[in-house]
């Protein structure tokens, strides 16, 4: 099962306001790219040699910010009421 299929099952109320920002300057000289392995929703994708990030499928666990040794990820929860809405949990 692909991650897109999994995330499509979840209910999201996606905020227009972005809750995670990635400073790509920091990513450029990052060899390890831990965000790729830390994110359980594959929000970080390596395209050619740079990281692209999308916040829409974020499960709000907070792993990426802890994993990023470059301090390039600034993380906050989405605004109240927005983001993932688990039906089962």
């Amino acid at each position, binding site marked *: *099962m692909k*991650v897109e299929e*999994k*995330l499509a*099952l*979840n209910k999201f*109320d996606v905020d227009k306001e972005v809750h995670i920002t990635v400073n790509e300057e920091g990513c450029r000289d990052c060899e*390890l790219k*831990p965000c*790729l*392995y*830390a*994110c*359980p*929703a*594959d929000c970080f994708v390596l395209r050619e040699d740079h990281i692209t990030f999308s916040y829409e499928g974020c*499960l*709000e*666990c*907070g*792993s990426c910010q*802890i*994993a990023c040794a470059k301090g390039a990820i600034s993380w*906050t*929860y*989405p*605004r*109240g*009421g*927005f*983001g*993932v*809405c*688990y*039906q*089962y*949990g």
Partner: protein
Amino acid sequence: MDRFDAIVVGAGPAGCASALVMAKAGLKVLVFERGKYVGAKNMWGGAFFGPQINYLFPNFWEEAPVERLVTRHVISFLTGKGSVSVDFKSTDFGIPPYNGFILLRAKFDLWMAKQVEKAGAILATGLKVDDLLVEGEKVKGVKIGKEEFHSDVVILAEGANSLLTQKAGLRKEFSSEDIKQGVKEVIQLSRKTIEERFNLKGNEGVAMEFVGLCTRGLPGGGFLYTNKESLSLGVVAQLSDLIKNRVKTLDLLEEFKTHPEIGKLIEGGQTVEYSAHLIPVAGLGMIPRLYRDGLLVTGDAGALLLGTGLILEGANFAIASGMAAAETVKMAKEREDFSQRTLSHYQQILKESFVLQDLETFKKAPKFLKNARIYHLYPELIVEMAEKIFRNNGEPRKGTFRMVREVLKGRISIWQLFSDVMKARKAI
């Protein structure tokens, strides 16, 4: 703006427990929940153990949305060639007040929050607390955007990714060594299929843990809980190991689902949800300062949970700490003193209860559980021994102990094995 005796941040088990106890004592309580509804952000493996919920809501199972009782525990060592399991079925665990409850958090937490409202607390959902309101050294309330909400005390029950606790200067930044990541799928299956497949009757349920191949031999494990009409299947692994080994929990869970043992159990099921969460696993060492002037930290935000390999508990610690925080606030209210001197009573209650005592008893567990052999080598050795014991290849048999020696030979020294057993003795 109204002034509150207490503001609670987060309506999970810790937040609900503290709000309920305070509201019942007649305090003016305001609970903020960032989810659109209570439970929207809450996720776990699957089961609650012990009497804590029953202390809050006597005989809650009669009306609360409980999926099943835990009447059977299975721990399996899983390899590519087979598995060896301990399968414990208890008749006593099926008798009130029961020992374990399988719950789905989005449903159960919503029910819990309703009881909290009935007790008189005000619940505000869809509101994320952005910051604490601090005057001098004292926490005086919370901020949401530009709005300020004032109270004598704030109880943080914000969960594992405790950003406000960090902002309050009570904890340092997390290291990926101290954090595990759990991912889970809820897989729908008919009630009848679940009961036949797992040998269950009525409200009986099973909690299963898997060690070995499910994490590709990395520290962590797999889990499966039977809900009424679905299974909760997931994988937990250490964040630092995922990074070091360039592995994703997403892939581990997909592999786990296709393992023959698991494939049979979930066959025909339909995934209906995919979720993820952090678990602070470093034990006593990572507990933040739990109080300061006008502030208390409870539940996962306080890293108050227990993982010994055999026992995985968090929500009971959350409820116990929430109740302890509420008792402390009641006392502080009587004294009209919310300084850290009075609030330090919270730490005292926790020390006298199972919360800090269990963490003390098992303080060596977090380090012990990082031993890679537990997840890589030992499952393989155990399965190989079982295979050798039960295999009949037509040759004359060898004595069991000789065979065990042969399996161990070249893989692990007796001294290493002895040392691991001794460490286990002290840790778990």
